[in-house]
């Protein structure tokens, strides 16, 4: 349980992406229920705005959060690679200097 909570804490962006996706789908379904419950267009449009548009935004937020988590991981890996190669560069310079 502790490991799962720790994973949730570290992977907060992916957790938030899943939560936003679930909320988005829920809001879309609620909007659909509202629209299908009335035959009057004037009563349907507020449901379209609140359920449809906000649900769409939450789904877009889920996608953005998931992609940003991937970008963040790639950035971290590249940064670690840069640090590692910089260390290797120092090694090579040191060994070249000592050989002279």
């Amino acid at each position, binding site marked *: 349980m502790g490991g799962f909570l720790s994973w949730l804490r570290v992977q907060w962006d992916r957790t938030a992406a899943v939560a936003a996706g679930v909320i988005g789908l829920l809001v879309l379904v609620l909007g659909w229920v509202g629209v299908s419950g009335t035959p009057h267009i004037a009563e349907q449009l507020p449901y379209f705005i609140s359920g449809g548009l906000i649900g769409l935004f939450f789904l877009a937020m889920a996608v953005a959060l998931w992609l940003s988590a991937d970008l963040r991981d790639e950035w971290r890996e590249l940064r670690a690679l840069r640090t590692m190669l910089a260390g290797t560069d120092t090694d090579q310079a*040191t060994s070249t*200097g000592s050989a002279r």
Partner: protein
Amino acid sequence: MSLSLLPDAVRREPRAAVFGDDAPWRTGELVRVGVVSTAGLIGVAVAWYGASAQADWPDTLPWASLGAAAVTVAMLGLVAWLMAALRRVRSLRREVMPWLEAAVSTPSSSATVRTAPDADFVTVGGMTRFHQPGCPLVTGKPVRPLTIEEARTSALEPCGVCGP
């Protein structure tokens, strides 16, 4: 660039739970995205409120248009968030790639292996890391053989490229 071939040491770098130094965004970008997305959501709320107050459907259409425009603005905030990260990742990739290509394209030769045929690992005087005998970073250098035990007990760190 595929990162699946990176050494385990790089992929295993711990992932911090917070932003700050561990993410490709700056505080200003975070604030900008928050402001734009919040403004968009407020616009959607206003559109919903306005549309709810109308009795005839033609009167609700302008409010629906406002809602569509507002949600577009909110999504642009999300796109700006992704673009900022993508820009930073590309910049870092441009910085790292020449080093990586130089390290990988060093011609490998069997001279190093012949120098230390029975060695588990090798190092070079002055280096702070130990390597696999065939590592391109020690190719052509006067290597000193190391056993597993010597490598483990020494103060040397494992090379991040060949991953001994």
